[in-house]
């Protein structure tokens, strides 16, 4: 399995502090229990999940259910990215639909217009998204809180406007049609069962990478800067670089999801990649839970299943439910669905350091100072 910078354990001073287990946003480092046990349990969960996810096509042949599961994997990818960005780095992006759009349009245009191999298109689109993420991330990630949220929202809107307006390139509101499906060793992935295995393999690789992240130097740096950027940077952590790193990784995940989407449904149009999707992804990540990467699985699952459950009434209710649910979760269940069982059973003695952690003092008083780090 690919891993994020493995073997970087010999930690810096911050690494040691984080390893002590009191700084982590909960979930990975457990006090009072052996690290080996925690490690084994985490891997067991991942292995079981992978096994179930990859063997589904053996006993499930209903193409409707398979398509729901394929969309689950496609939603899971950007949600993992946002889970890392929000939960571990404490940075928000309300423009991630733009990266899904860049991936989808990159794949669609490179294959239909320039006749590129679909896999090469997926790779090049991801590269393009990474480049855009660096260009937008370098100035944007210097901003904090509300400013970062608005900047990413504005970025998302600009990308959407470009997708609609650059008619000569993107086909405008008509979108792009007859995008070729992916192939693997001569087998066309238009076969839903084959596509299922490939798309879930990709999603599982991303999940594994995300699960490994807290055990790497970068992961520990993110945890530290989430707590307090000033202390982290005074300990020698390159705050800007680490924030950019996770932003770019999350953009790549989103872009690959967009590419899979384009090659799967074979038709794309710009309206699906607007603010609503960006907001929905953030809501999904939050509802699933930010304290652990598994929250992304819960969130993406809910994002895909809820419309199916509500479809008999009206699938528009999904967005309403998500909007209300995210408020309820923020107020009553800061660890999200992933933390709900432990919370309800009273297993968790101390609240993990989640996004909703109460600040110690008063509401922000010195308002002028929030603009810049």
């Amino acid at each position, binding site marked *: 399995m690919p891993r994020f910078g493995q073997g970087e354990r010999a930690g810096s001073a911050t690494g040691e502090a984080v390893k002590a287990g009191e700084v982590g946003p909960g979930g990975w480092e457990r006090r009072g229990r052996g690290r080996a046990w925690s490690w084994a349990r985490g891997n067991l969960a991942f292995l079981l999940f992978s096994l179930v996810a990859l063997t589904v096509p053996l006993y499930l042949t209903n193409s409707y259910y398979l398509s729901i599961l394929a969309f689950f994997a496609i939603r899971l990818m950007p949600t993992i990215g946002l889970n890392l960005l*929000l939960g571990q780095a*404490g940075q*928000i992006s*309300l423009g991630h639909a733009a990266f899904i759009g860049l991936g989808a349009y990159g794949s669609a245009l490179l294959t239909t217009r320039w006749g590129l191999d679909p896999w090469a298109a997926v790779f090049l689109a991801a590269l393009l998204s990474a480049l855009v993420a660096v260009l937008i991330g370098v*100035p*944007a990630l*210097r*901003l*904090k*809180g*509300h*400013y970062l*949220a*608005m*900047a990413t*929202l*504005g*970025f998302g*809107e*600009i990308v959407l*406007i*470009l997708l*609609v*307006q650059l008619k000569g390139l993107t086909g405008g509101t008509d979108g792009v049609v007859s995008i070729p499906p992916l192939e693997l060793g001569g087998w066309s992935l238009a076969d839903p069962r084959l596509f299922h295995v490939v798309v879930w393999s990709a999603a599982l690789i991303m999940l594994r990478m995300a699960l490994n992240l807290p055990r790497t130097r970068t992961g520990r740096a993110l945890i530290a800067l989430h707590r307090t950027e000033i202390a982290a940077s005074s300990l020698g952590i390159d705050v800007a670089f680490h924030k950019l790193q996770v932003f770019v990784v999350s953009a790549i995940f989103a872009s690959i999801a967009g590419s899979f989407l384009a090659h799967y449904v074979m038709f794309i149009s710009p309206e699906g990649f607007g*603010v609503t999707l960006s*907001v*929905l992804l*953030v*809501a999904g990540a*939050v509802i699933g839970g930010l304290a652990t990467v598994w929250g992304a699985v819960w969130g993406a699952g809910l994002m895909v299943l809820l419309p199916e459950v509500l479809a008999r009434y*009206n699938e*528009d*209710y999904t*967005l*309403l439910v*998500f*909007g*209300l*649910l*995210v*408020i309820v979760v*923020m*107020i009553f269940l*800061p660890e999200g669905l992933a933390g709900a069982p432990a919370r309800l059973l009273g297993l968790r003695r101390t609240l993990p350091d989640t*996004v*909703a*952690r*109460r*600040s110690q003092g*008063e*509401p*922000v*008083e*010195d*308002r*002028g*100072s*929030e*603009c*810049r780090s």
Partner: protein
Amino acid sequence: MSLQDFLQFVFAGITSGSVYALTALGFTLIYNATGIINFAQGEFVMLGGLAAVSLHSGGAPLALAAIGAVAVVTVVGLLFELLAIRPLLNASVLAQIIVTVGASLALRTAAMLIWGREAVALPAFTEGAPLSVFGATVVPQTVWVLGVTALIVIALQVFYRRTLLGKAVRACAVNPMAARLLGIPYGRVVLLTFGASAAVAAAGGVLITPISFMSYSSGALIGLKGFAAAILGGLGSPAGAVAGGLALGLLESLSVGLLPWSGASGYKDAIAFLILLLVLFARPQGLLGQVSAQKV
């Protein structure tokens, strides 16, 4: 471009600029009292417009429909504060952003379920032939937009400068802790602020609906542009919000008019966001604001 065309774009600019100014003012009110940016601000504008259309088509005279719509949205703003903001008043900035973003999603979808996807419009407040100013035509509604906007700005100024309650709100903006120690009920001030902010936004929505159509999805764009205006003028300054709104409206309208490129109008919305990004990246304290030191 002739003077006549130029003036035409200027009038269009200050008309939409007035609505941006009111939206920006709504952002500023809440930000000053709580330090929160309300991502649902644009939805209040949208709700104001749509509620007025419903009340009017339900038989209410236009004036009553306008006042009723502002009242309804004010109640929504108050409920929003009580149910969603109050529990998280001391939470992290990220939690506050997520809650208001969630609220915007919920309000937008609720509006779609109530009013459908169609864009609707109100009749103009007064009948009458368009005025002619140096050859440029000005519809009477433009005069209404400018006049009511000016009235709201003046009324807010009087409230904040001259009344005891207004001074209490300003005290909370300067230092919530000290204000509370002086016996100012901070919770009630925040509640009042959300109500006032929703009312101002709704008024903007009612004013603009006769000129540009309103639909459930209009709020997101207006909200983002209102924020761009607030940032342009320096977040936290009411005068800056108004100046920023008018400037943004003018920039938008004139860039569409002056760019020698026929497809430019499709990019009109992008201009506002480009300005937003440029100001955020280069001068996040706004064009008029001052750099402040950061407290560690």
